[in-house]
C-alpha cells in the first residue's frame, strides 16, 4: 500500500492522465501545468501566423513601390499582425504560460485558486483567438484599421471589423479571469512561512500584472463594446457626424492599452529576475527595491496613456502632465536594470543559454526604454510621431523585452517542464543568429524614423531604400534563428537527455521538486523559513 503510494507520488504530471485519452488529457485537464502548456502551444501556433505576416511586410518594404502587395493588403497585413501579436501573444504570453506553470509551484501550492476557471480562461482565449483569426478570411476582407481600431474609421470601413473587435473583447475576458485567479492564488495559497517578502520576484511581478489586468482590461472591454454598438446600431458615441468625439475613443482605448504594455513587460522582468541570480550564483541585489519598483510601474503606468496622443489635440497642461509622468515611469524600470547589473557584479557567472537571453534582454530593453524617453519628450515627439521610430521603439520593448524574456524563460524552465535538456550548442547558435537578426531588423527603423519615414505605409521615397533593405534582410536572419530555436526545443522535448531536478542550481521551490513535477507538485506542502535567492 505505502509502496503504491510512493509510486503514485513520483508519477509526473505528463504521465498522470486522469483516465483521459489523446487530446482530452489536455483539453479537459484542470492541472495548472497542463493548462500552461496548452497556452504555450496555442500561443506558438498564432505566433507563426503573426511572424509570417511580419515577414510579408518586410518583403513589401524591401523596395519602394508595390513589391508583393498593394496598399489595401498592406493595411490589412499590419492590422492583423498587430492584433494577433498584441492580443493573442504578448498580453497572455508570460502570465498565461509561465505564470500558470510556475506560480503555484513557486509559492508552494498544489494548483491555482480556481482550477476550473483557469481552464475556462483558456477556452475563452481560444474562442477569442478564432474570432480574430477568422477576420482574415471571412466576408469583406481583413480589417485595415491598425490594431488600435481608431474611431470613426473602425465603424466606417467595410472590412471585417466585427470579428476582430469582438475577438479582442472576448480575449479581454480571458485576461481578466487569469488575473483574478492569480490574485486570489497569491493571497490565499502561499505556503506556510512564505510571507510577502519571502516570495520570489516572478510571482511578485505576476501580482502587479494581475492588478493591471483586472483594473485596466474592463475599460478597453467597454470601449470595444461601444465600437461594436457603433457598427451594429449606428449610435454615434465616436461619430463626429452625430456629435460624438473620436478623441474620447483614443483616451478610452489608451487608458487600457498603455497599462497593457506593463502587462507585457512586468512578468518579463520577473522572469529575468529569476534567471540572473541563478546564473550569477548570487542573491538578487536589492530585492525590496525590485518589489517596490514593480508596484510603482504598475501604479504610475496608469497615468501615462496620453503620451500616445501628443498630436491628437489636448490642452497644454495635459500634454505637460503626461510627458512628465512618462519620464517618472522610466525611473522604476531603470532601478530594475541597476539591480540586475548589480546582481551580476562579483558573481560567479556561467554564461549558459538562459543567461545569454537575459543579458541580451537587458541590452535591447535599455535601447527600447531610452528611445521611449525620446518619444516622451513633447517637442521631439511631434517630429517622430507616427514614424518608423515608434515602430522601432515598440518592437525593442515588446519583442526585445517580452519576447527575449519569453525565450529566456522557456530555456530556463524547459528542463523543469519537460524533464529533458535541450541541445545547448544549437540553442546558443539559435540565440546569436536571432539576436543579430533582431538588431539588424529593428535598428534601422530608428534612423528611418528620425529621417521622417512614416509608419504603416506600403511605399516610401527612394531615399529610404538602403536602411529598408538592411531591415528586411535582418528579418530573414531573425526568422532563421527562430526556426533553429524552435526545432531544437521541439526535438529536445521529445528526445533530449533526461534533466535532473536542479540543472541550473536555482534556489526557488520549483528546483526542489522532480523534473517534470508530479501532478500535485509537492508530496507535502513545504514550509519556508529563509529568504528567497539565498545561496549557502
Amino acid at each position: 500500500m505505502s509502496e503504491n503510494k510512493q509510486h503514485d507520488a513520483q508519477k509526473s504530471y505528463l504521465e498522470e492522465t486522469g483516465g483521459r485519452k489523446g487530446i482530452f488529457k489536455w483539453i479537459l485537464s484542470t492541472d495548472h501545468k497542463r493548462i500552461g502548456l496548452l497556452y504555450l502551444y496555442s500561443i506558438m501556433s498564432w505566433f507563426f501566423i503573426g511572424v509570417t505576416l511580419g515577414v510579408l511586410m518586410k518583403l513589401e518594404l524591401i523596395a519602394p513601390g508595390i513589391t508583393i502587395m498593394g496598399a489595401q493588403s498592406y493595411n490589412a497585413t499590419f492590422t492583423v499582425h498587430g492584433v494577433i501579436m498584441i492580443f493573442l501573444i504578448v498580453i497572455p504570453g508570460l502570465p498565461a504560460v509561465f505564470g500558470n506553470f510556475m506560480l503555484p509551484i513557486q509559492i508552494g501550492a498544489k494548483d491555482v485558486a480556481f482550477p476550473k476557471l483557469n481552464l475556462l480562461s483558456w477556452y475563452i482565449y481560444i474562442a477569442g483567438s478564432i474570432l480574430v483569426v477568422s477576420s482574415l478570411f471571412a466576408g469583406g476582407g481583413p480589417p485595415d484599421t491598425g490594431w488600435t481600431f481608431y474611431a470613426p474609421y473602425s465603424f466606417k470601413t467595410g472590412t471585417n471589423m466585427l470579428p476582430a473587435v469582438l475577438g479582442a473583447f472576448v480575449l479581454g475576458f480571458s485576461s481578466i479571469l487569469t488575473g483574478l485567479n492569480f490574485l486570489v492564488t497569491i493571497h490565499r495559497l502561499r505556503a506556510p512561512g512564505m510571507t510577502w517578502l519571502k516570495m520570489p520576484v516572478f510571482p511578485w511581478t505576476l501580482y502587479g500584472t494581475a492588478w493591471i489586468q483586472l483594473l485596466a482590461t474592463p475599460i478597453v472591454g467597454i470601449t470595444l463594446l461601444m465600437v461594436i454598438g457603433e457598427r451594429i446600431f449606428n449610435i454615434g458615441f465616436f461619430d463626429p457626424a452625430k456629435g460624438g468625439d473620436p478623441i474620447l475613443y483614443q483616451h478610452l482605448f489608451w487608458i487600457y492599452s498603455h497599462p497593457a504594455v506593463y502587462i507585457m513587460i512586468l512578468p518579463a522582468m520577473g522572469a529575468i529576475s529569476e534567471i540572473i541570480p541563478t546564473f550569477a550564483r548570487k542573491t538578487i541585489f536589492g530585492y525590496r527595491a525590485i518589489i517596490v519598483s514593480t508596484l510603482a510601474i504598475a501604479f504610475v503606468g496608469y497615468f501615462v496613456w496620453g503620451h500616445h496622443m501628443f498630436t491628437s489635440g489636448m490642452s497644454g497642461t495635459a500634454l505637460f502632465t503626461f510627458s512628465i509622468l512618462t519620464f517618472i515611469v522610466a525611473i522604476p524600470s531603470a532601478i530594475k536594470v541597476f539591480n540586475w547589473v548589480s546582481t551580476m557584479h562579483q558573481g560567479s557567472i556561467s554564461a549558459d543559454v538562459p543567461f545569454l537571453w537575459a543579458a541580451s534582454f537587458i541590452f535591447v530593453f535599455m535601447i527600447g526604454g531610452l528611445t521611449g524617453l525620446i518619444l516622451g519628450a513633447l517637442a521631439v515627439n511631434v517630429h517622430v510621431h507616427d514614424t518608423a521610430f515608434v515602430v522601432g521603439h515598440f518592437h525593442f520593448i515588446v519583442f526585445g523585452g517580452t519576447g527575449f524574456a519569453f525565450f529566456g524563460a522557456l530555456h530556463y524552465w524547459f528542463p523543469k517542464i519537460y524533464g529533458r535538456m535541450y541541445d545547448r550548442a544549437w540553442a546558443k547558435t539559435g540565440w546569436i543568429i536571432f539576436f543579430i537578426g533582431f538588431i539588424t531588423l529593428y535598428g534601422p527603423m530608428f534612423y528611418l524614423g528620425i529621417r521622417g519615414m512614416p509608419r504603416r505605409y506600403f511605399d516610401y521615397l527612394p531615399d529610404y531604400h538602403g536602411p529598408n533593405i538592411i531591415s528586411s534582410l535582418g528579418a530573414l536572419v531573425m526568422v532563421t534563428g527562430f526556426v533553429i530555436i524552435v526545432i531544437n526545443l521541439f526535438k529536445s522535448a521529445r528526445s533530449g537527455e533526461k534533466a535532473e531536478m536542479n540543472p541550473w542550481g536555482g534556489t526557488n521551490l520549483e528546483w526542489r521538486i522532480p523534473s517534470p513535477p508530479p501532478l500535485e507538485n509537492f508530496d507535502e506542502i513545504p514550509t519556508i523559513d529563509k529568504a528567497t535567492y539565498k545561496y549557502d
Partner: protein
Amino acid sequence: MSNVHRDDIGSKLGMWLFIFTEILLFGGLFITYAVYRYLHPEAFHLASQELDVPIGTINTIILLISSATIAMSITAIQQKKKKLTLWLIASTIVLAAIFLINKYFEWGAKFEHGIFPGSEYLDSLGYGDVLFFGLYFFMTGLHAFHIIIGMAVLGFMFYYVKIDRLTFDNFQLLENGGLYWHLVDLIWIFLFPLFYLIA
C-alpha cells in the same frame, strides 16, 4: 468531492474582484456620460424629461426589494430553512422578470415615438439628444443584459439549493450569487438618477 480544495474566503475574494471589474466596465460608460453631459447640458436636461419617471421609480423599488429577498435567502439557508430559501430565491427571479417587463414597455414606447439609435427622427433632434438616448439605450441595455445573466445565476442557485449542493455550512456560492445581484442593483441605483432625475 472531498479531495477538492475549498476556500470560502478565497472564493469571496474572487467574487469581489470580479465585481470590481464590472464596475470599471460601467465606469467607462459613466465617463462617456460625464463628458457628453458637460458638452450638451441643455439637451441632456430636456431629453431626460422625456423619460418615464414613475416606471423608473417602480423599477428601482422592485430591484431594491429583490436585493432584500436575495440577502434574506442567505440568512435563511444558514438557519437551515431550505423551503424559505428556495422561496426567496424564486421571488428574486420573479422580481427581476417584472423589472424586465417594465423595461420592455418603456423601451417599446420610445421606439414607437421613433426614438432609437440610428433612427432618422432621433438624428434630426441634434447632437445632445442623439448622445443622451444613445447612452440611455446602451447603458440600460447592458444593465438589462446583466439582469438576465443574474437571473440565470440565481436559477442555478435555486437548483443547487434544491439538490442540497448548497447547505447551511456550504453556502458560499449563494453568497457570491447574492453579491452579483447586489452589483446589478447598485449599477441601477446610479443609472436611475443619472438618466431620470438629474435635471
